[in-house]
């Protein structure tokens, strides 16, 4: 026992030393570390849990198929609670643990500051969910996303509202977060371009429970359509309080409303709420086998689960093709080669790291579950 412990201790001291000496041999021996980072606690913990499920299953499947470059993958986790400061400290911790790639984060407000740390420390970052354009627009070598962008999402939403709610009075609200404000602004841009001007454009404070004052204000302005750039908790409370005050409104939001928790919060008031999300990834033929594996474990691969799975796959496939886990070379390979075969179908990336074919469609909440509009 004592001897064993001493060897372990020795090894743990020796490993960083070897690594810093640039010993490629030492790297090749140990397992390859990657990480999934997102809000495992806090108001958006439901999405962190989705990401963890997706990444865990992906790593299990990759290891079962022999790992990459003859080595097994080890998955680390990081919890940022969607707090930008915590995201930076998590990013530093993960970089300190020598992870080669981070799948994450969830909130754009976390992904953007964390990406700076990863860029400096040499870590590839693939977000399955951060849609704020700035995340990849800043031109960092290491940032990728498998989801779409707010300008794409907002364009779809703005055009849809202009076409389907013609002549109605529209309010655009946002929570001042990178995601929420970005989405609201892009939607406003598309809506105005289509010739409709919103009646109210306003911010609200996230994390509160009482939005009655705001709701009364919307009511006084005879608002018929509310577009919310924000997360599901506040959106659910706003629509619930609006219906309580007797408003007949349609709530429209972004991909953050794509969780059963939205309905639990809104209750029956959520009926008819619409949101943009890519067409249901669970129904794609390429996903059938993996979806069955999730269901066998009693996990519903809703929301971002399969996006996280695909993000992990993209990195693993690119590392195999590049023949190395060196972050810069993997990042270059992801951009230049492809399309990568993933559960979501073939995926290619442009020079910025965005997916080349995003596909936003509208979903609507009915009776506690959501379905694609017109599907």
């Amino acid at each position, binding site marked *: 026992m004592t001897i064993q412990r001493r060897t372990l201790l020795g090894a743990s001291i020796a490993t960083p030393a070897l690594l810093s000496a640039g010993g490629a041999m030492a790297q090749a021996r140990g397992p390859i570390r990657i990480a999934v980072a997102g809000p*495992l*606690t*806090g*108001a958006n*913990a*439901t999405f962190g849990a989705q990401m963890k499920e997706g990444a865990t299953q992906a790593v299990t499947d990759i290891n079962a198929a022999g790992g990459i470059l003859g080595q097994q993958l080890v998955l680390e986790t990081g919890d940022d609670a969607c707090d930008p400061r915590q995201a930076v400290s998590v990013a530093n911790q993960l970089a300190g643990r020598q992870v080669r790639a981070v799948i994450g984060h969830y909130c754009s407000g976390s992904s953007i500051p964390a990406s700076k740390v990863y860029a400096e420390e040499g870590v590839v970052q693939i977000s399955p969910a951060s849609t704020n354009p700035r995340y990849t627009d800043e031109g960092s070598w290491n940032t990728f996303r498998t989801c779409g962008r707010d300008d794409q999402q907002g364009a779809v939403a703005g055009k849809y509202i202009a076409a389907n709610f013609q002549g109605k009075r529209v309010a655009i609200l946002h929570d*001042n977060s990178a995601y929420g404000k970005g989405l609201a602004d892009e939607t406003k841009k598309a809506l105005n371009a289509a010739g409709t001007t919103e009646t109210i454009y*306003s*911010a*609200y*404070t996230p*994390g*509160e*429970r*009482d939005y*009655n*004052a*705001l709701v*009364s*204000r919307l*009511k*006084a302005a*005879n608002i018929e359509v509310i577009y919310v750039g924000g997360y599901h*908790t506040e959106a659910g*409370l706003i629509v*619930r309080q609006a219906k*309580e*005050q*007797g408003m007949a409104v349609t709530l429209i939001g972004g991909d953050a409303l794509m969780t059963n*928790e939205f309905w*639990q*919060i809104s*209750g*029956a008031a959520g009926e008819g709420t619409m949101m943009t999300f890519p067409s249901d990834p669970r129904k794609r033929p390429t996903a059938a086998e993996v979806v069955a594996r999730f269901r066998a474990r009693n996990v519903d691969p809703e929301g971002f689960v399969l996006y996280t799975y695909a993000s992990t796959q993209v990195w693993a496939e690119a590392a195999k093709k590049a023949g190395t886990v060196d972050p810069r070379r993997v990042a270059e390979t992801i951009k230049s080669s492809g399309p990568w075969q993933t559960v979501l179908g073939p995926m290619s990336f442009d020079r910025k790291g965005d997916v080349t074919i995003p596909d936003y469609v509208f979903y609507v909440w009915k009776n506690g579950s959501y379905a694609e509009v017109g599907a």
Partner: protein
Amino acid sequence: MAYALQQLINGVALGMIYGLIAVGYTMVYGIIGMINFAHGDIFMVGAFVSLISFVLLSAGGWAAGPGAVLLVLLVSMAITALYGWSVERIAYRPLRGSFRLAPLISAIGMSIVLQNFVQVSQGARAKPIEPIIQGSVELWHGNGFSVSLSTMQIVIVVVTLAVLAIFTWLVTSTKLGRAMRACEQDRKMAGLLGIDTDRTISITFVIGAALAAVAGTLYLLRYGLADFFMGFIVGVKAFTAAVLGGVGSLPGALLGGLLIGLIETLWSAYAGQDMFLLRELNPAYKDVAAFAILIATLIFLPSGLLGRAEVEKV
């Protein structure tokens, strides 16, 4: 006009809940001169106890009628009071007579303990319940704007006033209340005259926690959500309300709560509206408005609106 009335209703219902919690801060401050920073988290525990009770009741097939709500309220008050008592027994009593900052630090520690305990045992996600008290009445219809008053808002106002009336009577007209007021004036003297001061202080914490449980239950019923972090923001607002109304004064706590609720609501209602100077204001700054008024009050009325000026006892 109709719009202003609607916003007043919104503000009063919110302010009542702040007031209920503020009473807990004020009572504890009055008796031992410390700010119980764990009080916001006691409120959170109260909401969770109610949430669990509601889930158990509906699993047991009980209809969610007024009887069930009353039962849940009583259960929550009892269990939360136990938390309040334990917090005092564990974290504050051993430090009595220690230097002033010690119980304050201990209170912040207790707040972290309670938050993390609930986070670990109940999970980090916000827990929703089905709407239980629904419906609303239309009070008035003017200028194309209908003023609605929801059943829940009526319940909040009625329950808050009833509970506060009972506790005011308790403090002003019973033997226990007399003991509490005696401890507040001079704890050492009260002890010399045969009052069990430790017991009186414990009961103060129990009452404060029970009121926080009522607030937690009402909050849960009103907004349908409970999470481990909910006590923080509400606690800060209620603490502000207590200071604004005058720490140590029961009516002051309610008044402070109402004021904070109204300032917040009216700021969101009118800032940025297209009239006079309001155009320049941003509705998202409602907390700034509430806290600015707190600062102004403290500068000009250091003991709050209804507080007595502190007399240095020699």
